[in-house]
């Protein structure tokens, strides 16, 4: 009996060891492109392609990105980084605010047509983006919003997905808290932002980080509505320069890619728990 337990134990710990080894091994290709990217951005051009560990480092590529004027004008990369931050933050704020307001009405208030609106929101999530690309572009053109921040933000300001998540979570908050706030004379808006949101921190953060990430990653829409280098978000500017002026400068490309990656990695590492929770919870955001 003693021997049997010992064998079984050994077998178990070997199994565990194997599990951890496989998981660690699998992590290598997940992380490798990031490491390669950062290294490449500091390499001299001759070593970018075929040497993994550089023999000498250079800041030349970052100097090009940050300081050198491109085609005579002021370098737009810093501006593009600021544009990306602005557009992503404003959209995130808007998605959270209107998601909470609409989600609250759908979860906690009674009015005729509520279930109709609910179904409409689920229905909206089924439609692929390609259907809207052209007419939204025409709409934005008609409004004179090509090459403006409004134009970039317009299609993303409110999200059916965010409303759905807030609605689901707000339904679980006890009615007594809302009643108590009403007795204290709180308006519905104050109930939403001072009672409901503070009680729904994780949902709020999940909505915020996923929205910010998808705006940071957005490419096609920005490509269509921005023509002016000074207004482009970083994703589009880097994309166009990579295909254009910098097409034979891999060092500058990787420096640009690093610049585009670092902010979102900071957000990922600060909120990684919410990223994993958000996926497990909803499985909805595609």
């Amino acid at each position, binding site marked *: 009996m003693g021997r049997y337990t010992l064998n079984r134990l050994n077998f178990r710990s070997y199994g565990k060891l194997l599990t951890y080894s496989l998981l660690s091994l699998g992590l290598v290709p997940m992380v490798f492109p990031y490491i390669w990217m950062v290294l490449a951005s500091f390499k001299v051009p001759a070593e970018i392609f075929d040497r993994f560990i550089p023999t000498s480092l250079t800041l030349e590529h970052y100097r090009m990105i940050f300081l050198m004027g491109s085609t005579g004008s002021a370098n737009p990369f810093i501006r593009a980084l600021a544009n990306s931050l602005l557009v992503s933050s404003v959209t995130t704020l808007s998605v959270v605010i209107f998601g909470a307001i609409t989600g609250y009405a759908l979860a906690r208030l009674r009015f*005729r047509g509520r279930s109709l609106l609910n179904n409409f929101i689920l229905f909206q999530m089924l439609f692929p983006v390609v259907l809207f690309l052209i007419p939204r572009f025409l709409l934005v053109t008609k409004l004179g919003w090509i090459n403006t921040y409004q134009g970039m933000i317009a299609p993303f300001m*409110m999200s059916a997905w965010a409303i759905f998540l807030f609605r689901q979570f707000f339904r679980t908050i006890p009615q007594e808290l809302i009643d108590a706030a009403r007795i204290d004379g709180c308006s519905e808006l104050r109930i939403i932002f001072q009672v409901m949101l503070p009680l729904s921190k994780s949902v709020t953060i999940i909505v915020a980080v996923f929205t910010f990430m998808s705006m940071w990653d957005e490419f096609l829409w920005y490509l269509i509505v921005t023509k002016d280098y000074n207004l482009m978000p970083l994703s589009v500017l880097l994309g166009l320069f990579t295909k254009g002026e910098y097409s034979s400068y891999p060092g500058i490309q990787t420096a640009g890619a690093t610049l585009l990656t670092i902010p979102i990695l900071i957000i990922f590492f600060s909120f990684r728990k919410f990223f994993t929770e958000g996926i497990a919870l909803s499985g909805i955001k595609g």
Partner: protein
Amino acid sequence: MNSILAKVKPNELVGYGLILPYLIYSLIIWVYPLIWGVSIAFKRWNIISTEKTFVGLSNFVQVIHDPLFWIAFKNTLYFMVVYIPISIFLSLSVALLLNRINFLRSFFASGYLISYVSAGVAYSIVFNLMFSGNGIINTWLGGIGITIPWFSSPKIAMASIALIVVWKFLGYYSLIFLAGLQSIPKSIYESAEIDGAGKIIQFFRITIPLLNPSFTIIFIFAIMLSFNVFTEPYMITGGGPLDSTQTFVMQIYYHTFTNLHAGYGSSFAIIVAAISFAFVFFIRKIVEKDIA
């Protein structure tokens, strides 16, 4: 107007007030474009001119006869055939491994998710350079006497693009599977054990069937993604070599914003949306089962 207002109870007004912004927004940015998009699909219209002529179904007929539509269709199918099985196999493997451990589980989970946050443009740049003819991957493969023309051979360029998208979403799908695995009650395995079912039988008779909701959602995501591929081929191959990485969205982009034919682009988009609906519907019929 008065009679409608008279019917609204005062306590309903708050609700209507709060949903009003979303309602108006949806009308402007969702309903109106949807209708407009359909209506211009029946017109011949160059964006920069004001002349629009009604041409009936002619745009749709043209799309069906457009060789590039069928090339994009074929490429999309190729993408799916590579992307979906590899994604599912790898992410289910990672999820099964993650499900076996407690210590460091969240470390590994977020480790695998790190690729998910990388921006399309950034990782396209990185993979384009890493997998280029003389890039690091081929340099290493050269050590054992192989070079693979990842993005430059028309035969495998689309498969290479599918592989880098696998990289991006691997952790994401793994976490969906992991959530599914954790929702399976341990007691089911225990009673199977008592009945003498081995690990392999347990896997195929319990784990796979009970993961059905996760499989369904991943299939739906993967199909919708396949019909929307744009950034990676736009950045890496530009649709080439020999149109082997042309996708639906690239074609819609080209017809509308390079060729400026909004009507044609619109009917193209409607046909693509219809096909993707059909695929999702079909896959749900096949995959989705009621496990309750």
